[in-house]
Structures are given as structure tokens and as C-alpha cells.
């Protein structure tokens, strides 16, 4: 403690119980623990010093970005150390000639695009939390966003990192060029949820802004019909920049909250965004319109300018926040299914919703099969347990369809105990071996990703309002 104060400066080491409380959880507020102290280093060397001290004294530590994670990834261990990267928020280098940018981990996602937008570039992965979530957190979670269908996820856009290993050594992986020699350690690090080390600088690809962008909104009577349109669009070889779906419940909630004026009576809307060279976009847009009409769309709107586009996106972007209008509590699930199975799985979710007697709203990244079912419940009426059962049953339906436990929110603490439903004991044991190669002493974000008996005896709590939301810093876009 004294040692850290000397290295970081006393004001950058937090030990006051009141202040520590800010760090007790991330966006998954059901898991909480008070850390022993929070360190706020300002450089790779300072991160290294903190990690070395933890390593020497065998104290567990966890990195923290903006704390918007939805799987309990940044939840501390009681008595452990939180290493907040909040002060490492500088853009280190913009290299347009290489189409790269080098940033510290605490830089907010949207800041990257802001820094290069005037030059005609953008940073492609766009999680809905992009105003606040950090690049370090994005790297740890391999975050996605509405516009990742065509351009890929975080892992496709990170070309290099500086990583402080759990024993305090520093390693540089990749750089501005691609395809480094040897096993793809960078690919392993991205998405490893802060369990293999702490990332202290990141080199990202910048993407040239497209010539044209065109956005379509199609209203359908049922999610079945909209789901069929998704499959048909993918099968036709059209690759939209974004392909998002909302169902009746989430449309109704959005209308109550921000009145986007979506097609009246729609049981589902599809939002399709196409970008690229103009002739291709024109042809693809015509194809998408034709497919939607064939699949039973009763209304199609097209936006070609920014204002009209913002209007079409308004309902989608407000969907999560809007759920507060129709339910007191909700739980967000993050399962993935093969795109051809979307209609079947959506039907299954409807059945499960009926048998559990709880409503489920669906607003999700349809183009890559990533569902975000929102299980609505009222904790005060004792529905918590049932909501959790329903959420689990939905995950099982995704896995039965050949999908995944999580498409972008990560395993963290939340789903560690569900991992055996997707992976065998051998698979998990192999993950454990890889982890040991990095963290022999089990100090780096322990208890996350891989199930442990200690952890899996406990029961997670429900979603509650995230401290950042309460503070008005972030909203559930």
C-alpha cells in the first residue's frame, strides 16, 4: 500500500470504503465485492509496478475499464486489487499512412472514431456502450456492435498490443503490420476477458468511410417472417453493414419511450444498413427490398441521409433503456444461433416465455445470429427465480441449435458455471492449461471464464441499475 502510494502518488491509490464502493461491480450488478484497494496507474511502467507488487505478495488483481461489462468480468475479489486504466486515456499516435491508431486502454471507443472522422476514417466495432466503454475493455471482451456484421469484431481490428503479464513482465505482440510469426497470441489475448494480463497500449485498424450508406427499415407481421428475411438476405450473398431486429414487445417499449414511429402494428421490424461503393449498395438495396417484400414485409422505408437514418435507428438505439417502461426488472441474455435457425429459436423462446409466464423482448444483431432476449420480471413479486430459469432455458435452446453461450458480453463470472453446457471437461481443462502458461499463480482476474467449484456453488443476482446509469454517465442505448 505504502509502496504503491510512492510509485503512483497517494491520490492515485484508493482505500476509502466509500470510494471503493464505486468499483464493487460492473454492469452485472448482482455480483458485488469490495476490493482492498484501487490503483490508478498512468503508464505501462506503473501498471507493471502494481502487478509486480501483487505478484510478489500473492494478491489477486483485476483490470477495469469503464465497468460497463455485462458478465461480471471486472468484478473484484474481496481483498483483491482493482487496477483501473481510467488515467491511461491518451491517443498515442495517429498514423493515417498505415491506417492505424495507437491508443492507451482507457480511451473510450467513440473517441477513436472522433479522432479520425475528419480525415474520412472510422473505427469499426461499435458496441452500444461506445460513448463510455474503453478500448481495453473492448479488447478483453472482443466486443461487437451493430456494425460488425460486415467489418468484423474487435479481434479483426486489433493489430498489436502491449501486455503486462501476470508476473509483471511486459510483452509486445503484433504491431502495425499483420500476420506476425508464430502462434496467434494476439488472437488469444483479444477476448480473454482480462485473465491473461493487462493491456496497456493497443494498435487498431482504421477503416476508410464508405462512399455511400443506405438504411432500410422493414415492418413484418411476425418475427418468423422477419427471421426468414434475415436468412434469405444472408443466403443471397448480400453482406449488410448492419442487420438488426426488434420484436413486438421491444417496438412497443420504444414507442412509449422515444416514439420512433415504426410501422403501426408491426410484430417485428428489420433494420438493414448497406454501405460501400454506390452501384453495389444500390443493387443490394433493391435486392434487400425485394427479399423483404417476398417474405411479407408490409412496409419498407428507406433513408439515404443522416437525419432520416438517425430516425430509423432511434427506436433500435433506445430499445434497452425503453424496457424500463414496460417492466421493473429485466435480465439480458446473449446467446448465439446459426442464422438459419433464427425463426425456429425465436418460436422456441416464445413457447418458453409462455410456459414460464414471463414476457421476453427480443432486440438483437440478427445478421450474425446474436440474440439479446430480455427477460422481463418483477423482483418484488418474487419472479426472480423464474426469470433466471427462463434465461437459462433460452440459453439451452441456443446451444441445442448449435450456437453459443455468449456472442459479445463474455463469460466473466456470470456464465462461468454455464461453460460445461458448451464445453467438455477436456476442453475446459485445456483452457486451464493455457491460462496457467500465463498465470501460474492464479492471480489475474481469478474466478472468471473457467468454472470453479467455489464459484459455481453461488447464485448470481438479478440485473439492477448500474451505478454509471444512476450517475447519468451511460445509458443502455
Amino acid at each position: 500500500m505504502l509502496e504503491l502510494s510512492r510509485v503512483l502518488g497517494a491520490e492515485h491509490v484508493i482505500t476509502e470504503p466509500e470510494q471503493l464502493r464505486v468499483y464493487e461491480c460492473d454492469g452485472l450488478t448482482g455480483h458485488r465485492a469490495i476490493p482492498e484497494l484501487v490503483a490508478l496507474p498512468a503508464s505501462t511502467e506503473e501498471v507493471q509496478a502494481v502487478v509486480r507488487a501483487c505478484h510478489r505478495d500473492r494478491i489477486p488483481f483485476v483490470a477495469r475499464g469503464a465497468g460497463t461489462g455485462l458478465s461480471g468480468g471486472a468484478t473484484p475479489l474481496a481483498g483483491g486489487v482493482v487496477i483501473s486504466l481510467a488515467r491511461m486515456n491518451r491517443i498515442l499516435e495517429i498514423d493515417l499512412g498505415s491506417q492505424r491508431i495507437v491508443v492507451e486502454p482507457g480511451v473510450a471507443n467513440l473517441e477513436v472514431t472522433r479522432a479520425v472522422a475528419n480525415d474520412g476514417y472510422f473505427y469499426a466495432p461499435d458496441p452500444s456502450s461506445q460513448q463510455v466503454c474503453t478500448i481495453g475493455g473492448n479488447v478483453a471482451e472482443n466486443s461487437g456492435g451493430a456494425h460488425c456484421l460486415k467489418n468484423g469484431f474487435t479481434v479483426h481490428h486489433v493489430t498489436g498490443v502491449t501486455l503486462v503479464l501476470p508476473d509483471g513482465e511486459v510483452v509486445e505482440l503484433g504491431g502495425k503490420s499483420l500476420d506476425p510469426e508464430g502462434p496467434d497470441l494476439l488472437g488469444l489475448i483479444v477476448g480473454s476477458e482480462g485473465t491473461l494480463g493487462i493491456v496497456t497500449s493497443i494498435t487498431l485498424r482504421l477503416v476508410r468511410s464508405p462512399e455511400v450508406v443506405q438504411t432500410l427499415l422493414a415492418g413484418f407481421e411476425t418475427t418468423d417472417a422477419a427471421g426468414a428475411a434475415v436468412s434469405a438476405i444472408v443466403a443471397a450473398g448480400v453482406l449488410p453493414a448492419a442487420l438488426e431486429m426488434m420484436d413486438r414487445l421491444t417496438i412497443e417499449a420504444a414507442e412509449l419511450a422515444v416514439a420512433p414511429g415504426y410501422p403501426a402494428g408491426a410484430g417485428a421490424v428489420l433494420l438493414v444498413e448497406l454501405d460501400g461503393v454506390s452501384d453495389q449498395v444500390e443493387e443490394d438495396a433493391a435486392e434487400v427490398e425485394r427479399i423483404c417484400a417476398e417474405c411479407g414485409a408490409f412496409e419498407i422505408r428507406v433513408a439515404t441521409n443522416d437525419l432520416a437514418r438517425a430516425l430509423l435507428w432511434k427506436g433500435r438505439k433506445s430499445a434497452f433503456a425503453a424496457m424500463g417502461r414496460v417492466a421493473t426488472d429485466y435480465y439480458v441474455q446473449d446467446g448465439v444461433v446459426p442464422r438459419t435457425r433464427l425463426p425456429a429459436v425465436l418460436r422456441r423462446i416464445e413457447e418458453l416465455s409462455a410456459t414460464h409466464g414471463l414476457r421476453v423482448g427480443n432486440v438483437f444483431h440478427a445478421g450474425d445470429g446474436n440474440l439479446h432476449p430480455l427477460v422481463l420480471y418483477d423482483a418484488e413479486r418474487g419472479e426472480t427465480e423464474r426469470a433466471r430459469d427462463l434465461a437459462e432455458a433460452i440459453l439451452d435452446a441456443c446451444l441445442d441449435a448449435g450456437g453459443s453461450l455468449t456472442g459479445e458480453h463474455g463469460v466473466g463470472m456470470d456464465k462461468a458455471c454455464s461453460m460445461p453446457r458448451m464445453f467438455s471437461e477436456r476442453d475446459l481443462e485445456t483452457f486451464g492449461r493455457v491460462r496457467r502458461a500465463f498465470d501460474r499463480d492464479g492471480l489475474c482476474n481469478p474466478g472468471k471464464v473457467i468454472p470453479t467449484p467455489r464459484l459455481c456453488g453461488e447464485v448470481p443476482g438479478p440485473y439492477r441499475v448500474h451505478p454509471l446509469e444512476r450517475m447519468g454517465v451511460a445509458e443502455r442505448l
Partner: protein
Amino acid sequence: MLAAAHTEGRRLAIGEDLTTDGLDRILEHEAGDLTCTVEAGVRLSTLQHALADHGQRLSLDPPGDPTVGALLARNLSGPLRHRFGAPRDLVLGVTLVLADGTIASAGGKVVKNVAGYDLARLVCGSQGRLALIARVSLRLHPLPKARQTLAIETDDAGTVVRSLLGSQLQPSALDVLHPGGILVLFEGSPRAVAAQVAAAQGLVGGVEVDFGAWDVSRRRQAAALERIRFDPGLLEKTLHELRNAVVRPAAGVAYSENDMPSNRLLQGEIEKLLVERIRSELDPNGVLAA
């Protein structure tokens, strides 16, 4: 076989002592999902034929005809790397056989998935030293309806490349055949391809050539002595140092047909140590140590 070698303390080299030639089935091709799952011994050409029947492809075109396992283990790519990436960008999941015989899977067969460690990417470029790759799930793309190649002769490749990369054109491939030549591939609908070619010509000139031009690029890549990496922004300087080479400017990768004074591929010491630690966790007896 691996388990036996593990207990007996023997060494095996994947591709030599142990091949995946028998593992040559295409297990699943979900055309509607644009994904497939194959055994690692399938030849790339065999897979591409099967996919083409459904109007799809794996967007990797390295020289030669490697098995899918070798494609991953050696992280091979060709001209299409420009737009579609390397194997690590298209792999969705793997099943591995570790040196002690443990069969372990990671990833999945869906295009989006963050559950568990990404061992599918980890084994890309592992040269068969970490584990045997037995089964692979891959992301596919539709075959383009049309394609056209533009060839540009220039002694100022740097400027041509810069104006192409700085434009809003979206080529599928862009190779500098150093010295003197540049190839650009456009794919898509016939109308959009024609428009892109015309726009590119307006920008940098050039003539349309046969698709076979890319075979030249691939042949030269295969014959290269060395692969080097460079910051894409330092293309001009790099070209200056190279004599004959195939250069992928956006990736910052060049296949040099001459010896280079300094090999810039070297891994750092700590990275090597890290790889060694992973290797010894996965293969403590050094069966695959080669």
C-alpha cells in the same frame, strides 16, 4: 499415436510422422449460414470445389494446395488477404488433439462467439508445435457474380497504392509485383465491378487483364525466400530496400525473392518465452517439439 508417443517419450512431426490425410471429410456445409466444418486433412481445392457447387468459397487463396490443417498451422494466405484476412480471421472453431491424446475443442460453428479461450486463433501460425488440428469450422463468403483485374505499370508504386487505399474503392486484392507492377482485383455485381474499374482507372490508370495474372503473383509468393513485415505507412521505404518481391501493402507484408539484410520477423524474447510456456503446458513431454 500421439498418446503413445507421449508416454514413450518419442517425438512426432505433424505432416511427416503423423499426417491428417485420412481426415478428409467435409462434415457439414450450412450454405444458408455461410459456414462449414471440415476435417483438417481436406485439401483446399477439394473444399473450394464443393463450396462452389453452392455458389460459395473460403476466401483464402494461398499458393499451392495445402490441407485445411496446414492452412491454419502455417497461417497461409494469398492475394485475397487484402479484403478477407488470414486464416485467423475466418476460423470459427477447432478440435485439437493434444500431444497426450487429449481431444479438446474451442470456439464453435457460429460466426459470432466469445465463449472460452480462442484456441482456434492460437493454433493459427503454430506450425504444428502446439497440437494436431483435427477439425475446423470456417466462415465462408458468396462467390462474386463478377470480377475484374486491373494491372498498372508504374515506377512509383507508393503513390499509386496510396491513392487506391485512400479512395473509397473496395478492392478484394491489391498486390505490388515489385518492381514495376500492381494488380488490383474488384469483385461484386457486374455493374458495380465495372464502375469500380472505371473509377480506379480514372485515379491511377492501368489496363484490364486476365484473372490468370494472379497466378503470377501466387507463383512469385511461393518462390519467395523470405517474408518480411513493415508498417504500411512505410511502403515507399520498404520498396526501396526490396529488389524483387510480392508486396501486400495494406497488411504490411512482403514476400521477398532476395535475401534481406535484416529479418524483421523475429519474435521478441518474452514472446518466445510465452510461446514456450504455452507449448510446454499443452505438450509437457515435448512430443511435438520437433
